[in-house]
């Protein structure tokens, strides 16, 4: 407990606190996946980019909210809910994608076909 307090204090004096690191890495992941989401045309790649983007958002959500008062349960609960939502959304996207292929569609939406 005392060591934890000590390290938190130590970190807080530095320029890059833990929460800032979390936020920066989360932002980086979101940036990369946004490029993937809009750059890719293959629907599967776009679904994966969405999942990656979700991870970035969750990282910011748990990371940023770690104030000096210790671990905050609320963002953890939020992220849990967010993960459930992301998994269900991915499942829906995959099933619709499969049906789309089965109905004769291609791996890209019509507007992305050249």
């Amino acid at each position: 407990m005392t060591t934890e307090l000590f390290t938190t204090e130590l970190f807080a004096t530095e320029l890059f606190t833990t929460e800032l690191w979390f936020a920066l890495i989360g932002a980086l992941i979101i940036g990369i996946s946004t490029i993937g989401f809009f750059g890719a045309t293959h629907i599967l790649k776009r679904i994966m980019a969405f999942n990656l983007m979700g991870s970035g958002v969750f990282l910011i959500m748990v990371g940023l909210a770690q104030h000096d008062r210790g671990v905050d349960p609320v963002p953890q609960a939020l992220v849990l809910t967010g993960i459930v939502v992301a998994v269900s959304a991915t499942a829906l996207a995959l099933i619709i994608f499969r049906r789309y292929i089965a109905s004769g569609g291609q791996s890209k939406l019509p507007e992305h076909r050249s």
Partner: protein
Amino acid sequence: MTTLTLIPALLLIPLVFAILSLLVTRPWRNAFALLGIALQAVAALSLSWVIFTEGASSTALGNWAVPLGILLVADGLTVTLLTLTAFIAVICALYAFFYLRAYPREERYFWPLFWFLLAALNGIWLADDLFNLYVGLELLGLAAVGMVALQATQQSLAAALRYLLAALFGSLMYLLGVALLYGSYGTLAMGQLSDLMVGDLTTQIALLLMTLGLLIKTACFPFHYWLPPAHGGALAPVSALLSALVVKSSFYILARIWLDLGTLAVPIGLPEVLGLLGTCAILYGAWRAYTASEIKMLVAWSTVAQLGYLLLLFPLALNTTEAAAHLAWQGTLMHLLAHGFAKGAMFLAVGTLVLAARSTQLSDLAGISRKLPMALFAYGLAAVSLMGLPPSGGFSAKWLLIQSALHSGQWVWIIVISVGSLLSAAYLFRVFSVSFVEGKQRELQPTHPMLDVTALTLALIAIALGFFGMIPLSLMELGTPLPESPLPTGGQP
């Protein structure tokens, strides 16, 4: 006291019926849905009555205090929207009973999705913290995408995928904004945030991210690309529900974010930019509706155009006088209601025409006025409201918006509103110019009279809003939510 049971009932009834309707088999399906829809309507109307007589109320689910539990708030605005939802849901359900006879496979999955959609909508209207709004938005999005994909044709699946990807990106941007706000303020309750919020950079970035996400979900120009194929390609009752209610819910959140929470954090020029996007939507949507060759695409593009008016709320209500803001808020709410009823009616009427003609091409509707006068009449009444001709809800809405623009001296929006009305008249009349042409006529399938009755009912409500518009507007005035709760609050899973 009664609100303690009525508010959760509005969430529980749709959820219970969503799950049970998966189990109910064919002969009982409609009767079961009818029971649910009656319960839901009674709950919504009685809650409205209680709020109207006793004032705003709230309930903490399961009696858990706020940091752990979920607080649901019913104020005047909430019950107005709940009533709108209940009305449109009842009519769409009645329409679906008869319409879906032609679609036995789709019928099975329509009802569970319908109920999930209702649960999500009611949840969004009742929610009072940013995270529950997120959960509601996601449930709504998933249900709506499922409904778009119902027919499982290549075209509808592509529309559903496009819609889903847009909606998911929008939700993540919204959630990112929520994360930043929680990081700064340590609470997600609307009431507390509106007291705490300051205009610093983090807040502005968070609000802008949320705005981006919600603009995508509301299909505002230039993020409207997913809407016409999704709304234009879906089954008629689905299109009606999506255009009348679903896109409004994300706008409602957007409006609450800026008008309730972010009044101090409005970046310079943001209201004007949003107004400009609305203007582009009005002009571009009208142009695409005017050039559309399929009748359902015409109506879907008209939704894009009509959503543009909603965005005029921001330049009219932010950073202006109190009177102007009040009028703008009233006008926007009236537009939201009138467009909900009118566009619902229009999609139902057009669905009947398409069902009868077995064709979505506008040119195939030649001479249809003689065979389906009632459906066309419903379309006409809805068109009157959409164009903003008096007396109708659409007219009252535009009148209030113009009054607001006059109050704050922003002449440019008056021009936008008037030009938009003229343009909508131009594209809406295309249907009449075709349907009264006598000439080669297609063989028409007979349609059930209830299809006309339901569409006509919605259209008549849209017109009646022009006479009785003061009722929802005065109900909305009960808007002051409860006294601030002293407890620290947060978002809940």
